[in-house]
């Protein structure tokens, strides 16, 4: 497992300090609010943030609701965090538009707001956005899948719970890329980001499309579930996931999963905090920082795996 919950390296709150600049000898206080902490992907973001707390001597906390469907709960968390008077906020808004009113309050109190993973399209007051957007990740995945196939091949898309902006965007990106390369989308079905449901959905898709040539899933869990269903049919086709979790990379190394689109969650967490500290100190922060996205396949999988494992040591 990952480093556990709680304050990480941070000492118990260093109590009241009136100024918000962080220029006094006090540690800067950084609040990180993620979409959830209940999945491997977000655990990597957390790990990155916590590493940065340590490296940069930050009094930081990472929180997030129990699941990505708890949208208002995240807004509540942002409100509650405001009462703790942080010096900077790093946030991955689950449903960006809902977070804007509370983010404005941070701005009103001159607390810099840095977004990670997911950008808010129509809010200009953010200090920075660190990440890649999910549509790009989906697009890369779609392009890679297309490169393994030939024009006219049937592919299937496995989506998350409909209405989840992150997975919806990925599917949208992948769909566009696949269609641009002349692939035929034979099915586009939701599996609620649930491994067991993805397996059932894949079984059913294969029922209709025994000649399926490839699959793109909006996260790794669903890709692994789909893989399992394909294996049961003795079908060996490229199946791609998104996120780059340890489980999926191990599967790639075992020559099972076709690949996964990794968005560098660790980098997002680390850079988010790093730039938050810069902003607190009044240094210039770039408006947009690309944390990179890469497709992981057999060639680069081992390197990535070593890196991920080093995080959890």
């Amino acid at each position, binding site marked *: 497992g990952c480093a556990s919950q709680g304050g990480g390296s941070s000492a118990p709150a260093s109590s009241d300090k009136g100024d918000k600049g962080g220029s006094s000898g006090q540690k800067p206080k950084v609040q990180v609010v993620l979409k959830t902490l*209940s999945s491997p992907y977000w655990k990597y973001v957390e790990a990155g943030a916590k590493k940065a707390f340590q490296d940069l001597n930050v009094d930081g906390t*990472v929180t*997030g609701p129990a699941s990505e*469907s708890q949208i208002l709960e995240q807004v509540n968390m942002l409100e509650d965090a405001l009462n*703790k008077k942080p010096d900077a906020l790093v946030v991955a808004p689950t449903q960006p*538009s809902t977070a804007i009113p509370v983010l404005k309050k941070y701005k009103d109190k001159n607390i810099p707001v840095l977004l990670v993973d997911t950008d808010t399209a129509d809010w200009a007051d953010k200090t920075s956005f660190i990440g890649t957007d999910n549509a790009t990740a989906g697009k890369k995945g779609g392009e890679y899948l297309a490169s393994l196939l030939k024009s006219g091949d049937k592919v299937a898309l496995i989506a998350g719970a409909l*209405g989840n902006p992150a997975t919806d965007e990925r599917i949208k990106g992948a769909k566009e890329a696949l269609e641009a390369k002349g692939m035929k989308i034979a099915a586009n079905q939701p599996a609620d980001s649930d491994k067991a449901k993805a397996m059932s959905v894949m079984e059913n898709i294969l029922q209709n499309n025994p000649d399926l040539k490839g699959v793109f899933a909006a996260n790794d869990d669903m890709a692994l579930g789909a893989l399992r269903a394909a294996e049961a049919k003795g079908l060996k086709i490229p199946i791609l996931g998104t996120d780059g979790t340890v489980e999926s990379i191990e599967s790639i190394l075992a020559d099972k999963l076709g690949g996964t689109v990794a968005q560098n969650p660790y980098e997002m967490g680390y850079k988010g905090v790093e730039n938050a500290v810069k902003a607190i100190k009044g240094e210039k922060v770039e408006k947009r920082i690309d944390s990179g996205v890469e497709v992981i396949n057999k060639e680069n999988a081992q390197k990535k795996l070593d890196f991920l494992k080093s995080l959890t040591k």
Partner: protein
Amino acid sequence: MSAVIVEKSEARKIKSNGFISKFGALIGLIILCTVLTILSDNFLTVDNVMNIARQSSINALLAIGMLLPILTAGIDLSVGSILALSIMMMGIVSVNHGLNPYLGIVVCLGVGALLGWTNGIMLTKLKLPHPFISTLGTMNIARGIALIITGAAPIAGFAAPIQFAGNQFVGPVPFSFILVIVVYILFDIFLNRTSTGRYIYAIGGNKETARLSGINVNKILVIVYTLSGLMAGLAGLVMVGRVNSAFPLAGMGYELDAIAAVIIGGASFFGGVGTVWGTLIGATIIAVLRNGLNLLNVSADFQMAIIGLVIVAAVYVDVLRQRSFKK
């Protein structure tokens, strides 16, 4: 005979006498607040209390709506989805089509009430055996439609009148809190001082007796589910005001929080027992708990476990209190 005997748990029987038992969960709430005040400097501050007041408002509105079906020994699983469809319709009307914002508010409440009414009709006219089924159906249907009509995209940029309920303050006090109090007072009057209110208790207590006493049970049930839907619409309005956007996954899973608030507040699933103010306390317990855990930086996984424990504890305190009260 069409009547069937169902036993009620010990705890229920004792309930019902006098003032104290009406505010069963109150002691649990007080204990909870005391603990949090000790643990966190930020808890008992004006700012934070107002936070809690705002954060509890959506669940409080859903819960008071939910109280009615539960009083009639029913349930409404669809409130979260009704909330979502109501606000998406409001978004379409007043943002996408740019119509009058007040019309948007009417649409939001109207859609809520209409869906609630449909629940009532399914139950009474289609004679589905239990509202669990009809409202489970509505839960899926309304959520599906909410997703379909906007292609799952959120709608932002609501006009000020729409945002008012969820966003405005009166001095330091959030308007949504005042709204909750007003709504609760109205429900208190409705349930205790009107004949329809009494009929709701009567139906929950014994449907057959109610029918034989000349109560139009079906009509009352339709009113009950309509009001529950209306409250879901109102909760949606408050939510839109808070986050200035409507999104189709809004309110997912909220029915559980609403039901928990009602039950923690001392109502019985067997119907006929439960109060407006108990429900408010139940909703407040849940909000205080969530807020307190956030303030204490408790991680999400521990939050889950702790919320579970506190729900059990809050109710258990009530059980203990009643037991000693009985002696």
